[in-house]
């Protein structure tokens, strides 16, 4: 019984975190028409930065500052590579692939120069164990999930309630028309990319204390899973990403009770892949 409760709790927590990543990918696709393969690397950057900043800024300070910094990096990257020169979709995808390799390798080189090691164990300063029968659940995870949900809610508010959100939707639906009515299209697109990468970095900063380890390659599997979630949710659709993120998380965590974690992840990926087989445009995508 306790095991069930713990598994469901874990599924909820990870569902929100996956949603944070997939929604970032999905918004970026909506505004720029690019599948951002650098998303995992930016997630890793967020985790590493917040790990590096924690001694000076305290953990919570770092969780706020790291995503902002990474978001600025994303803004600059988008401006330089994707917006100043119009790219066709596959070319843009290859560019983000190049960015991913560079960021990952820069992180590797910097870590090796400064600390001499690549993997760093992270001992969380905040844990807040919650007693559940004979077991304990890490309260930090619940707090992280609450923060992530608040950010997602805020994003939804921005998306549907502000002038900026309105411009983003206009750019997504018809870029030429958006330009004609006076929306600063390039600026909007770059800011969406920055925001999406900031979401990835926030996920990285929050996940660090859960996985207890940061390393330059931590973003690769994360990237593949969140890309699948975003595509199966329908690229450009926030609701679809959200639903599929929870579906994936529940599938993975429930399967973990049956088999080893690697097979559980493979099974959950297959299950989400089935959505694409039935609906190639994704759950919330329009054909």
């Amino acid at each position, binding site marked *: 019984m306790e095991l069930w409760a713990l598994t469901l709790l874990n599924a909820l927590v990870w569902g929100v975190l996956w949603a944070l990543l997939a929604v970032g990918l999905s918004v970026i*696709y909506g505004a720029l028409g690019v*599948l951002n393969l650098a998303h995992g690397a930016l997630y890793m950057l967020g985790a590493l930065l917040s790990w590096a900043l924690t001694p000076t800024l305290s953990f919570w300070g770092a969780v706020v500052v790291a995503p902002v910094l990474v978001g600025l990096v994303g803004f600059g990257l988008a401006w330089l*590579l994707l917006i100043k*020169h119009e*790219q*066709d*979709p*596959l*070319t843009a*995808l*290859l*560019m983000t*692939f*190049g*960015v*991913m*390799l*560079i960021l*990952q*390798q*820069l992180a*590797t*080189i910097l870590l*090796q120069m400064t600390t001499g090691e690549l993997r760093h164990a992270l001992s969380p300063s905040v844990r807040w164990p919650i007693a559940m029968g004979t077991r304990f659940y890490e309260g930090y995870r619940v707090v992280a999930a609450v923060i992530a949900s608040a950010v997602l809610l805020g994003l939804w508010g921005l998306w549907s309630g502000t002038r900026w959100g309105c411009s983003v939707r206009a750019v997504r639906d018809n870029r030429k028309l958006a330009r004609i009515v006076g929306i600063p299209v390039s600026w909007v697109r770059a800011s969406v990319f920055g925001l999406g990468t900031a979401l990835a970095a926030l996920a990285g900063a929050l996940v660090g204390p859960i996985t207890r380890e940061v390393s330059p*390659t931590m973003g*690769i*599997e994360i990237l*593949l*899973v969140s*890309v*699948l979630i975003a*595509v199966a949710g329908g*690229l450009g659709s926030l609701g679809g990403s959200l639903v599929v993120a929870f579906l994936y998380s529940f599938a993975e965590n429930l399967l973990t009770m049956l*088999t*080893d974690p*690697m*097979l559980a*992840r*493979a099974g959950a*990926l*297959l299950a989400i*892949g089935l959505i*694409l*087989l039935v609906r*190639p445009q994704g759950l919330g995508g329009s054909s």
Partner: protein
Amino acid sequence: MKRWAALIVFVSAMVLPWLWGSATLWAMNLFIWGLMALSLNLLYGYTGLLSLGQGVYFALGAYGAAWAVIYAHANFWVAVGAGLLCALVGAFLVGWVSVRASGFGFVVVTLVTALICYLIALSADSITGGEDGMPFRAPALTLLGLVLSVRDLWVRYYLALGALLAGLGIVYLVSKSLLGLAFRAVRDDEIAAAALGYDVFKIRLFSFVLAGVLAGLAGAVWAISKEFVRAGLFQPFGAFLSAQPDPDPLIAVLLGGVGRLLGPLVGMGGLLVLRELLVSIWPQGYALLMGALILALVFFRNASRCAAARVLILSS
């Protein structure tokens, strides 16, 4: 002129192990990874399907050969055949699903397939050897009554060369045939190709399976000449993650020229030279350079295409 150049290259490849022994290993790597780049070029360059998970079929070819040797004590040719069969079946199953999606959907399915296969290979480490890999004893190569041991470098060299020539022949024939035209028609305009009566799904699936078999051939030859397989072969982006990075076929294709017959080979040669140079000076710089290379290649290819379009528009 072209024929003479091809003949000279061919003859020098045939005599290389006897004239310049120290380059043999390098050239062998070029042949195996060049075949891999050839396979990707068939898929991306001719049919327009960008696969980031082509390593899966390489790995299936390698494991097929290794399993045939370990569990069935197969001889050399059966082992290679088993590798090809594994790659063929895998490519058919994945292609059946993935080629329905085009563009991003296809890229994502190929990537996620690689992750799923990698996770399964890691978890089934009793038969795959897991992260550490698994050595096996390659069977002797029997050809026209001769029994050759693949432990000899020159045997491995000619094996790789033979595989590459077979691959080159297949890609050449396909690119000159009606089928090659159909590949390109599907790449350039899917809707127009469908309107002309081409079955886009079948053409893509065929291209995917053929590319998978070529990758499987490269994998089988690689496994037999190394006498070693490891689960990391399946890993998505695995080429950049190990301490001894494998050359990435996609970058070779971009470097050598997308959709050209010999382009991927030239690109792979360039990459291997770069790797040799960098690994001795600054090993970490290799992946960094690869990232920068992708950016530069993609950027300038696009820029030159833009320039060409502008000239066309102005002159018309």
